[in-house]
Every structure is written in C-alpha cells, then in structure tokens.
C-alpha cells in the first residue's frame, strides 16, 4: 500500500492545511458554505423575481432568509428525539434488519468462496469483510434515507407533523440522526460478527508430530508441521527447545518444546506477523545522483506515475531518509525495526536478477553530523514485498569497530538511512513513504474497529446526502441523485484533475472529440485553429462548475480505510479525527441546505 500524501496533525489540518494548501479544512468549510449561501440567495431571488416581480420577489427572499436564519437553530431536543425515534421505528418496520441477515448469511458461506490457500489470506479476509460491510451499509443508508421523507409527503403523514410546532430543521435533523443511529447499530453488529469471523478463520495453530523431527547440525531439530488452513511450515528448534517456523502465507509461529527429548511435546503458538497494525514513522527523503551530488529527486525511468523516482545501481547514487527522534526511549526493545518497500526497474533480466531472487541492495546507517557509518548490510529488493530489517543496538562501523546505534549514529535523535542498489544497470525506485521505522504496533482489534469507523463515517455522509436530497426530490429521483453523488465521489480525484487540466486529452468536450475521432491523447487536436479555440474555451467554461462540484463532493475513496486495515497499517488517530470531522462537516452543511429546501417548499399538493 502506498500512502502518497502526508498525514498532517489534526489541528494543523483543521486550521492551516498542508504546505500545498492555501487554507485548513475549517476555513475551506466556511468558504464553501458562504459561497453556497450567496449562490442560493441569488438563485432564489432570481426565481422569485421571475415569478412575482423584482420587488415582491425581493421581499419574499428577504423573509425566507431572515425567517430561515432565525429558526435555523430553534431545535427542541424532545422534538428531534421524537422524530429520530420515529425514523428508527419506521426503519425497523421497513425490515432494515434484513441487511444484517444478508450479511450474516454471506459470512456463513464466505468460507466456501474465500480461499484460505491464498498467499495472504489475512489480507483477503479482512478486505472482504470490510468491503462487504461497506457496500451493504452504504446501500442500506441510501435506501432508507432517500425514501423516508418523500413517502411521508406522498402518504401525507407529514401533514400531521408539520401542523405541530415542528421546525423544518427538526424534521431534517431527526431524520439524519435516526438513520445514523440505525446505521450505527447495524454496523456495530456487523463489526463484531466480522471480527469473530476473521479471528476464527485466520487464527490457527499446527500440530507437530515428534517422530517427524530430525536432528539438525549444531544440536537442534528440524522438521515440518502438520497441515492447517491449507499450508504447513518448516520448523527449526534449537538446543534449548525454542524454535520457530518459516514464514508461509505471510506469518510464522513460535514453537516451544515441553518434556524431555524422548517424550517431547511441541506447542505451536498463534500466527505471528498477521493481525498487525503497524505505526510507521516516516522520514524525509533526499537523493544523491551517480556522481555523488545532492538532488531532490532521483531519475525518471519513464514511468507515467511520477510518484517514485529511481537510483542507478553500481554507482554512488543513493536514496537517503532522515528520521527524527530516534532515541532509546522510543525503541525500547533495543533494536531498530526498519521496513522497506523498493520498486525495481530492470534493464535486463536473467538468472541472477530474476524476480524471485530480487536485486541486491545495501543499507547503511549514518550519523548526519559526524558522518560515521555502520557496516553495510545487504538485502535483496523484491517487488511488492515489505523487507523488514531489525538493526540491533550494538553495531560495527565501516572499519569494523564496535559502535552503539543510539550513542554514535544519531545526532540530536536524527539518523540517516542510506539505501543503494548494488547491481550494475539495474534501478531501485522509491518514494518518501517507502522506508519507515516501526517503533511499535497498535492493537489489531482497535485498528479493525477503526476500519469500521471509517465505514461509519461514509454511512453518515450518505445519510446526510440522502436526507438532504429527499427534502426537495421525490424518492426515486433522490435516490438517483444520491447514487450519482456516491459514484462521482468515488471518482472525485479524477474529476478534479480533469477540471484543473492535469489529465492528458483536455476537458470534457475535447476528450469527447478525441474519442469520437479516435485521436491520440498526446497529439494536438486536428480540428483547425479556430475550432480548437472554441472547444478549449467551452471546456474552460465547463470545467469551472466541474471543479466546484468535484470540490464539494465527498471523497469516498479517501474515506475508505479498507486497505489500511487489511495491509496491517494503523489508522492514525489524527487521520480518523480528520475523517470524522469531514463527515460532521457534511452533516452540518447538508442539514442547513436540507432545512432551507424543506422550509421553502410546500409539503401539500
């Protein structure tokens, strides 16, 4: 998994934003709200003026705005509670629990189609339950939220509600809260069921038959475990009776021996290396080129995705990560766990450089101040594979003298990690997030439920959009509208890049012409100068509203944290707080929009 963008601390994200952003998230929220308000005001006035004339229209708009703002925050908790409760009762009556039944049914039969003999069953199982939950819960939230209010209006039950002293805001908020409660309850049950399912399916142990073990050189024993979960391990047990298995399907086991040699029993522990929630500590990456000169980036190998840049093997070129706060207090176990994911660009292939074997590289730790270096450690860079290095505290320097990792190689807690490719004419590709320290792990259980919180966040956004759309659209139309928002939200990034002109092939009209005329994305349009100008101008006009829409859309892909959990990365509290804030922002914003829609419409026909 690639974490392309840096995760900012929550407050910085909220108030100031990253180095590329002009504002933090909160100022953006207010800018968006105020802009939307002004646009709505002008639009409302125009419609009103067309219908009633400029003066009467102005008077009506004024009354809507003043009366609306005055009543916006008149919310009685008892009324909101009553409406939310009614919403829950209505959801139950509409058999919302069928969703749960479907989910449990899927889990019951999941073992039939999820193959346990995959290279990484943990990833498969976790991503499966999270993805299935996401789809089911979002669909449920969608169907519940878009039909409720239109049904009330169609059945005229709304007549008996709005003729009570109920504010439109209370109706909208009660709906949103009611559906949020239903979604939360369903999600909680699904989360627990999923957790039990994953732990039971992935957690396993192996038996070792004592008679299959053979004496190994040096006094230990070697052998194989019995098969469990469609795999078996090789075991090595040392003279003291402690051992471990090799790594299969992304995990290994500890083995302990009880009893004496003849009637020994072997205990195989739970799988290690899965159920992880790694907390990566990222450093800053810089490069030096083949001649040893500092460069901000490596070289390009012509890959379209410019995220990673490359260093050439067998030269002085190196990728250098600088980590802060490398202190003994932070790495209490006394060693430094470094994880590396290296992309390899091969200019030739053969036995030596086969994909199985990987390409030889080296890691050197260096004191940024004194330049003292540790002895070179070599590793084989295999693609799509996280290479784990545990650097012990007692090291040798490049001349073979003993040195201490924390005392000699760090300066004010700073440590440099140099990575080089040792093989001529082969290249290593890396980006800042590809090398990180891992001082500790978070609890997988907590991370798993953080993953479910991310589904919860998406569910809230869908509910907010569904209820908002249902304040002014009929049920089916509101559903289509919300589905459109969901789908466009999944492609938000792409839309933004089209709108800002970052995608090859031009804006919507230009792309259409290229598709119809089967033209290359990179070539100049062959429509003639004038036509091209017209097309480009029209595109520029279209892309602005496109940019506005794409900016407002919820980024469902970003909100989804399935891969974080399934690939064993901890969802940092800051990230979770950001996502929760985003969903609250949507709730608040769409509440206001829905309130005005409901207030300015006639609920009777």
């Amino acid at each position, binding site marked *: 998994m690639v974490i392309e963008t840096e995760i900012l601390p929550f407050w910085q994200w909220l108030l100031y934003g990253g180095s590329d952003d002009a504002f933090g998230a909160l100022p953006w929220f207010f800018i968006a709200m105020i802009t939307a308000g002004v646009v709505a005001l002008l639009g409302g006035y125009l419609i009103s003026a067309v219908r009633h004339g400029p003066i009467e229209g102005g008077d009506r708009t004024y009354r809507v705005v003043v009366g609306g703002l005055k009543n916006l925050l008149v919310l009685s908790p008892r009324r909101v509670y*009553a*409406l939310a409760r009614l919403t829950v009762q209505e959801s139950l009556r509409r058999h919302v629990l069928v969703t749960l039944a479907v989910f449990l049914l899927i889990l019951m039969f999941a073992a039939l189609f999820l193959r346990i003999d995959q290279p990484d069953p943990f990833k498969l199982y976790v991503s499966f339950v999270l993805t299935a939950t996401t789809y089911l819960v979002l669909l449920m939230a969608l169907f519940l939220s878009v039909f409720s209010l239109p049904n009330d209006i169609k059945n005229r039950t709304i007549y*008996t509600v709005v003729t009570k002293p109920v504010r439109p805001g209370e109706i909208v908020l009660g709906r949103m809260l009611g559906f949020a409660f239903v979604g939360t309850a369903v999600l909680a049950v699904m989360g627990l069921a999923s957790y039990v399912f994953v732990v039971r399916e992935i957690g396993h142990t192996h038996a070792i038959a004592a008679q299959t073990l053979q004496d190994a050189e040096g006094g230990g024993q070697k052998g194989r475990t019995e098969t469990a979960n469609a795999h078996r391990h090789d075991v090595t047990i040392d003279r003291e009776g402690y051992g471990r298995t090799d790594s299969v399907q992304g995990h290994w086991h500890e083995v302990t021996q009880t009893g004496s040699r003849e009637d020994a029993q072997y205990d195989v522990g739970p799988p290690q290396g899965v159920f992880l929630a790694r907390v990566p500590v990222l450093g800053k990456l810089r490069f030096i080129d083949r001649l040893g000169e500092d460069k901000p980036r490596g070289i390009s190998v012509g890959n379209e995705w410019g995220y990673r840049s490359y260093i050439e093997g067998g030269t002085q070129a190196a990728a250098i990560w600088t980590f802060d706060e490398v202190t003994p207090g932070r790495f209490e176990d006394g060693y430094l766990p470094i994880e590396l994911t290296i992309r390899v660009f091969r200019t030739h292939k053969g036995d030596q450089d086969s994909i199985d074997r990987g390409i030889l590289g080296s890691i050197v730790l260096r004191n940024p101040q004194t330049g003292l270096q540790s002895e070179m450690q070599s590793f084989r860079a295999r693609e799509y594979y996280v290479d784990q290095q545990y650097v012990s505290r007692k090291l040798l320097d490049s001349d073979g003298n003993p040195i201490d990792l924390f005392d000699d190689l760090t300066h004010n807690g700073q440590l440099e990690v140099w990575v080089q490719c040792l093989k001529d004419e082969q290249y290593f590709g890396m980006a800042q997030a590809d090398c990180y320290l891992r001082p500790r792990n978070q609890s997988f259980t907590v991370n798993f439920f953080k993953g479910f919180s991310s589904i919860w966040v998406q569910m809230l956004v869908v509910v907010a959009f569904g209820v908002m759309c249902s304040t002014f659209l009929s049920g089916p139309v509101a559903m289509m509208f919300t589905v459109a928002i969901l789908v466009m939200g999944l492609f938000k990034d792409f839309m933004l890049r089209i709108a800002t002109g970052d995608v090859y092939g031009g804006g919507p009209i230009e792309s259409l012409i290229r598709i119809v005329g089967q033209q290359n994305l990179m070539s100049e349009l062959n429509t003639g100068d004038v036509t091209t100008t017209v097309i480009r101008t029209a595109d520029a006009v279209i892309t602005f509203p496109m940019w506005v829409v794409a900016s407002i859309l919820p980024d469902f892909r970003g909100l989804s944290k399935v891969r974080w959990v399934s690939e064993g990365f901890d969802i940092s509290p800051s990230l979770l707080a950001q996502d929760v804030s985003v969903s609250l922002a949507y709730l608040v914003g769409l509440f206001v929009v829905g309130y005005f829609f409901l207030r300015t419409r006639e609920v009777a026909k």
Partner: protein
Amino acid sequence: MASDVIIETRALSKVYRDFWGRQKVRALKGLDLEIQQGEIFGLLGPNGSGKTTTIKLLLGLLFPTSGRALVFGRDAVDVSKNERIGYLPEESYLYKFLNAEETLDFYGRLFDMPASVRKQRVAELIEMVGLDWAKRRPLKEYSKGMTRRIGLAQALINDPDLIMLDEPTTGLDPIGTREMKDMILKLREQGKTVLMCSHLLADVQDVCDRIAILHQGELKELGRVDTLLTVADVTQVHARGLTDACQHEIREVISRHQGELISMENPTTTLEELFLSIVRDSAARPGRRATVASEPVPPASPSS
C-alpha cells in the same frame, strides 16, 4: 374587538402551477374572511371549490400566491402559531405502524410536552374518543371510524384554542357522526374556535354558527346559519295533541287572514334519528329485533 379575531384572510389567492411554473388551476380567488373567537365556522362548497386549499393555506401547508393568511395575528407560515392549533386532516394521515398510545405520545413530544403531562393527556384522550380497548393495536388494524377517532385525539393533544377540521364526518357511521358533532359543540362550550369544512350540508347546518359558501375558489355567501336559512315569509307551527276539528279550525283561521296553507301533516322523523334510535334500542335489549312500527319515535327536536 380585534383581539377576538382568530383567523383573518386578506385577498387570499392560490394558483397551482405545474413544474414549469405554468398556471394550472386558480384554486382560490381573493378570499376575505374573519373568524371570531368561540364560533364554529363552516366552509361549504362542492368538491374542488377551495375549502381544503383554504385550510391548507391557513396551516402553512401551502404558501399563498398573493394575499395574506393570519392565524392568531401571525402569518400562517409561522410555525409557532401551531402551538395553539389542532388539525384533523381529511383522512387521518397517521403512522400506521404505531399504536394509539405511541401515536399520541409522538404528537405530544412534538408539542414539547414533558413526559408526565404527556402520559396523562394521552390517557385522557384515548378515554375520551373511546379507544381504550384498542390502544395497544397498531393503527393499520384500525377501522376507518377508529382511525378518525384517533385522528381527532391527536388534533386535541395540545388542548388547542383553534381546531381545524377537514371533512370531520366523512367515513363515520351515523353514531360516529353524531358523536363528532356533539364533540364539536362541546368544544365551543369550552370557548374554543372551530373551523370546519364539509360538503355534507346537514352536518354543517347542525353545528355551525356561521358559514361561508365557496364555489370555484370564490366566496359566494357568508353569514350566520340561522339568518341565512330563515325563510322570512313562512311560519312554522309545531303542536301536539290537536284533534281533527282543531286542525280544521286552524285552516279556517289561516284562510280568513288571507294566508296560504302550504302543508299541514304529521311530521316524519329523519333517517338519522330513526337509525340512532334503533341502535340505542338494540344496545339496550340485545338479541331482539327492534319493533319500530309499534313504537313511534319522537320527532327530532329542532335544537339537536
């Protein structure tokens, strides 16, 4: 006195438009009305005459195209006026999956009533509309009459000063109709204002103090029921125990004074009265066929 005016409309008009804003129907044309405190006001008219539109405008369910609707001196779109209003819609649009208690409790919460008050009020109203025996059954199992009763109960949950009833007696059997009319009269005794609309003329005549007759969205007639219905040049005499000779004598007196005798006959009762008396009799002596022919029913008293 201005403070006694509960409802006031000034040139109230409503035009229904289609999606594109094109005019479809002019449902109400320049309605001017004033309804005083403590009166029962009836809106009369054939289907599509604008009665329901008027009530919806007064409730803020619809927005006027022009003119104004004021309730308790406040604009009809102002939600806070609803604190003192009870509304029984044309059909009781209630949540079918709730039972009677839950329904009333829900509407009580919408009035922000604290739990203790709500509980007491719900029990009182269920008792009043006679649904004690069915209060735990979901409304989807209710008959039309029962739904109507619970609809009335929800309209009265806040002890309103103004009650708007849209076709209050449709769907009710004669007993229910009579009870509904008695209820309306009782509400007036409590000093409440009632606005009802109906096309059942007999019902309106029975209970209303004043009526307005609408036709095609226009106000055609407005006034007190007794004044409007009094036929000035006809005199009606009701008497009991007159002999044939006496009746003959009366005819002579009339002709002597150059009067025209329109009719002199034994009155028939109304079907409503007949029906009610049979049902009462059957309830008092179950299992027997009521013998109406041998026991003549007393004629309806004009006041009921």
